[in-house]
């Protein structure tokens, strides 16, 4: 039997030497794999939103993410739509008993129907800051009281100027008006007082004089947000924003009760001076609107948080938009009003629309 030719047949124990082409294929595969790995890493690290563009460490950033988040289960209202304001620079909002709206802005008051149709534009002698509507027992608006920088004017629903009050003091900054059938209540942030006037503007009562003996510091107003609404029982509810509370006064000026606490939690009022705006639901509950971290909330008649109408997310603001230091964005707040059917109206000055929030059918559990 002839022996195998060892020079031509490979030894079984000898490793098969790969061909040169196979080596370069493996190299190419390795290069592709490394390239894919690097690509995948780069893709995951890609700063698509520019969050790392400034290379500023997190400790040098202001993160309002936690405060801006309102749990979905705490929100008891849904936005049903919005209405046009019919003014370029809306500043204040009032809901009339008949369901129509009055929006003060530019140098006029726009009377807007419940479906958003402009009913009338009432021209004013100067740009308005705030307004109140005086209605009769049947709910028909008989006159509007509008405050500007220098004067308070009384106009009819058709736009006729029925009267002008005496010129305001130099330091006066009227931020809110409220009306009872016989009085007009003026909140003056500049003078830090609430004045109860008759329809001709004669002051009948002043509220807010500091009285340390009675532990009454007066109104603390770090910023020009100072709202007032009338109660049903000859009372006034005044926002003492620097003390983060709502105070109840009799028409004779006696402090009767108060509620509210400072906190960045949902149940409290955030920052130095909140709430910025106040409204009252038909059943006596309160609607508050905060600035800084815009939150619109409903409190019970005794000041317990019931539900949230809208948080920053519902108002279209994310945590980044909240932290905007530019001059025009400082201290943004949304005026609120309440329709007779319980809908909460929010004046969005940026969008120039009145946003309508209706209560959800399901429960309200802010916790």
């Amino acid at each position, binding site marked *: 039997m002839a022996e195998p030719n060892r020079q031509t047949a490979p030894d079984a124990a000898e490793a098969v030497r790969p061909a040169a082409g196979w080596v370069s294929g493996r190299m190419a595969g390795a290069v592709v794999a490394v390239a894919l790995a690097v690509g995948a890493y780069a893709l995951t690290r890609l700063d698509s939103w520019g969050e790392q563009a400034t290379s500023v460490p997190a400790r*040098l950033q202001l993160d309002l993410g936690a405060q801006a988040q309102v749990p979905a289960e705490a929100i008891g209202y849904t936005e049903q739509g919005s209405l046009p304001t019919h003014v370029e620079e809306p500043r204040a909002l009032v809901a009339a008993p008949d369901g129509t709206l009055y929006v003060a802005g530019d140098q006029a008051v726009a009377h807007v129907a419940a479906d958003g149709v402009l009913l009338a534009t009432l021209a004013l002698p100067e740009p308005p800051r705030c307004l109140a509507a005086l209605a009769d027992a049947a709910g028909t608006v008989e006159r509007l009281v509008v405050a500007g920088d220098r004067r308070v004017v009384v106009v009819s629903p058709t736009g006729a100027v029925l009267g002008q009050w005496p010129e305001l003091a130099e330091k006066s900054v009227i931020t809110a008006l409220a009306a009872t059938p016989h009085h007009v209540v003026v909140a003056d942030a500049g003078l830090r007082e609430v004045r109860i006037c008759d329809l001709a503007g004669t002051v009948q009562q002043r509220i807010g004089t500091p009285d340390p003996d009675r532990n009454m510091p007066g109104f603390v107003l*770090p910023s020009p947000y100072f709202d007032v609404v009338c109660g049903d029982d000859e009372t006034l509810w005044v926002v003492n924003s620097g003390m983060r509370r709502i105070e109840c006064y009799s028409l004779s000026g006696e402090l009767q009760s108060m509620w509210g606490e400072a906190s960045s939690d949902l149940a409290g009022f955030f920052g130095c001076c909140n709430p910025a705006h106040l409204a009252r639901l038909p059943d006596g509950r309160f609607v508050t609107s905060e600035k800084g971290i815009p939150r619109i909330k409903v409190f019970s008649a005794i000041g317990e948080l019931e539900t949230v109408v809208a948080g920053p997310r519902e108002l279209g603001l994310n945590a980044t938009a*909240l932290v905007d*230091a530019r001059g025009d964005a400082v201290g943004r707040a949304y005026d609120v009003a309440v329709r007779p059917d319980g809908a909460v109206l929010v004046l969005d000055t940026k969008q120039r629309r009145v946003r309508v929030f209706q209560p959800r059918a399901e429960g309200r559990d802010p916790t």
Partner: protein
Amino acid sequence: MALIASADRRRFLRDAIRVTSAVTLGTGVGFLAGQRGRPQDLRWQLDPDKCVGCGNCATKCVLDESAVKAVQCFDMCGYCDICTGYLATDYQQVDTAAENQLCPTGALVRRLIEEQAGQRFYEYTIDTPLCIGCGVCVKGCALMNGSLYLQVMHDRCVNCNECAIAVSCPSRAFDRLPGETPYRLKRQALALLQQKAAGPGQDAARAFLEQVYQP
């Protein structure tokens, strides 16, 4: 030959005088033109109404310690007990403990100035050497009153030809102001200062107003 040489010398002298006169005249005119067209001394400054407080001022300045610092407009400040520029958003107590402060370097100083019926009022000032210009307090304050804002401090700024912060500023808040008025107040602060300076006995306000840029 002598005549030709003499004529050349005269021509040479005449040409020399012409050239010298032309050069002198050109230099003089050029100097005067240069004097008239000489650029003003301009200084970098940021517009606080455009500033978003991104934090670049702290990290992009060529100096180890940024030339940008926070400033306080006391006329706009509410002297609040709960200052969102001073207290961390998740503060546990309203006090001066480090964990309750927003400023990473503790550069915002809080001082009680008045207490009235349980309500306390505080003054907030900047400890300038500690301030790194990050703008965290500016953003916190902007949630409420916006009395704190950033400015380039010209005792520190080296006035680079191309300011590294200006290049990276996302809101293009940087520009150059005349050297004699290199500071720019916030629009609201300027209005308040102008109002104050118009009153009687406000020499200090008027003197301050002369040092700030008024567009």
